[in-house]
């Protein structure tokens, strides 16, 4: 399956380079044509590839770690918390003062949300406490974003930021790619090695520990990894929801529900989903281009409803 997914991602990446107001820009053969490829299409397609990949991977990691098929960075507030931190960096002027402030703030926000969620799962009753904690984090982040915007001296702040938060990778140049990509790749490297222990966690935390899992250090690694990935992704692209929910669901059945074996295919599926969605918003005949995050939510939210209804009551109750 991984081979087919890789092929699909490669194809979508090439299509993403080709599609837009100017089709096949490299065929123009002119300097302008190549400028379009290098300065517009390449960063956009690469960001789509990386962001999709890390969102799909984060979804698979969170679902395996929290032992819950509904865990997803957007649904349970990780993206929102990263978004809030990024908004703070924007309007405090920190982001303008030094370029790394934006991804670093996003990473810190995401890591805080993940740590809060893990606390809720440890002390609570599975799905219910996880989702309620997610609702709470989402609500707090949204309220704090509004507060920061109200305090901002910039009268257009609200419009600007709601568009940004809706999630998009339009007009992100190579600089965005350069500040976010290393963090995303680092985060992915950290979590991809955790597959064995995610498998062990299928049996619950105690049994996983009896099988040799060091759950404390695993928790730190995964919090850091997911924080790096979702924080960096959110700080350049806003909130692109539901990718982390859909991607693991698409591949899980094919790997016999093993959480560790879900990681890599879920990463590839996530990349394919975001590349595909980003191509779709360019092709849709809307007056102004639809936001990527809006599109993934339109497609993804019904998917969540379906997942909730189809999920085995027994596997959700725990």
């Amino acid at each position, binding site marked *: 399956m991984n081979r087919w997914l890789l092929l699909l991602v490669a194809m979508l990446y090439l299509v993403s380079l080709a599609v837009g107001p100017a089709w096949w820009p490299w065929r123009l053969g002119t300097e302008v044509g190549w400028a379009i490829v290098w300065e517009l299409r390449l960063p956009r397609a690469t960001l789509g590839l990386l962001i999709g990949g890390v969102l799909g991977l984060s979804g698979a990691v969170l679902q395996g770690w929290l032992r819950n098929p509904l865990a997803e960075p957007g649904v349970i507030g990780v993206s929102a918390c990263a978004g809030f931190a990024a908004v703070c960096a924007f309007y405090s002027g920190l982001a303008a003062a030094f370029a790394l402030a934006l991804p670093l703030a996003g990473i810190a926000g995401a890591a805080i949300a993940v740590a809060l969620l893990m606390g809720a799962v440890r002390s609570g009753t599975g799905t219910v406490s996880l989702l309620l904690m997610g609702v709470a984090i989402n609500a707090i982040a949204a309220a704090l974003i509004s507060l920061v915007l109200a305090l901002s001296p910039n009268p257009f702040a609200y419009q600007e930021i709601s568009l940004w938060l809706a999630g998009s990778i339009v007009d992100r140049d190579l600089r965005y790619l350069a500040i976010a990509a290393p963090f995303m790749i680092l985060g992915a490297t950290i979590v991809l090695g955790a597959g*064995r222990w995610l498998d062990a966690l*299928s*049996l619950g935390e105690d049994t996983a520990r*009896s*099988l040799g*899992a060091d759950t404390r250090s695993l928790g730190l690694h995964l919090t850091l990894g997911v924080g790096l990935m979702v924080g960096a992704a959110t700080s350049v692209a806003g909130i692109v929801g539901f990718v982390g929910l859909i991607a693991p669901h698409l591949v899980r059945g094919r790997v*016999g*529900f093993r959480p560790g074996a879900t990681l890599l295919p879920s990463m590839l599926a996530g990349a394919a989903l975001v590349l595909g969605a980003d191509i779709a918003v360019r092709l849709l005949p809307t007056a102004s281009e639809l936001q990527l995050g809006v599109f993934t939510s339109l497609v993804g939210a019904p998917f969540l409803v379906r997942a909730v209804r189809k999920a*085995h009551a027994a596997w959700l109750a725990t």
Partner: protein
Amino acid sequence: MTTTGSTISVRGLVSRRDHAVVLDRIDLAFDAGQVTAIVGPNGAGKTTLLRHLAGLDTPSAGQVELRGQLLASLGPAIRAWSIAYLPQAASAYWPLRARDLVALGRLPHGADLSRPLKAQDAQAIQHALERVDGVALADRPIDTMSQGERARMMMARALATEAAVFLADEPVASLDPAYALETMTILRAEAARGACVIVVLHDLGLAARFADRIVVLASNKVAADGPPSVALAAGVIESAYGVTFRHLTVDGIPQPVAWER
């Protein structure tokens, strides 16, 4: 009491949870090749004792030793390799295939489910499945199984580790009489293999038949410790459980039956 020579032991073990004392200065040593049953009323601290033996809880005072070495000082990898732990009402959060579930028991030996298994691991998994009579179920997802079938797969998972210490917390709770007997036979076979088997049981009759030694926990202390005929004596269990028992003897084995409050 001497602890040298025993496989796993606790000395002066005190366990507190939110200021309440769950285990109060427990001294016990367990030997290889024996089945020890831990019995006692609900809340006596049986599960807590097992968790301390598995290294899952940290003692408030006292210590747990594995072959004379402090359990807390051993790394998680060595601990996992030496001690298999089957929790009460074990379950899985994903509908794994039975064979994958059992393969998790090989993680302490370095197995990785995402890579091809080593011959030794594959053999241990197959052997564990055979022992629980589960080869026919091996390729089925566990959510399609009955509770009893799932319990057997969980047992196979713990057996696959082939550890020196085997801890099981009420492994027969959801099993019908046939599989309950078979489970106890498997535990006996583990002891015969040389493992130190410690099992929490509620069924005193099964404990009397299959255990070499019975430890009665009551009010967070060891109330009795010895062979079934000693540990299940009328005076001991009646005060431990606070009920009266009828004492039958079948084939020379005591079979106490709880009778009246």
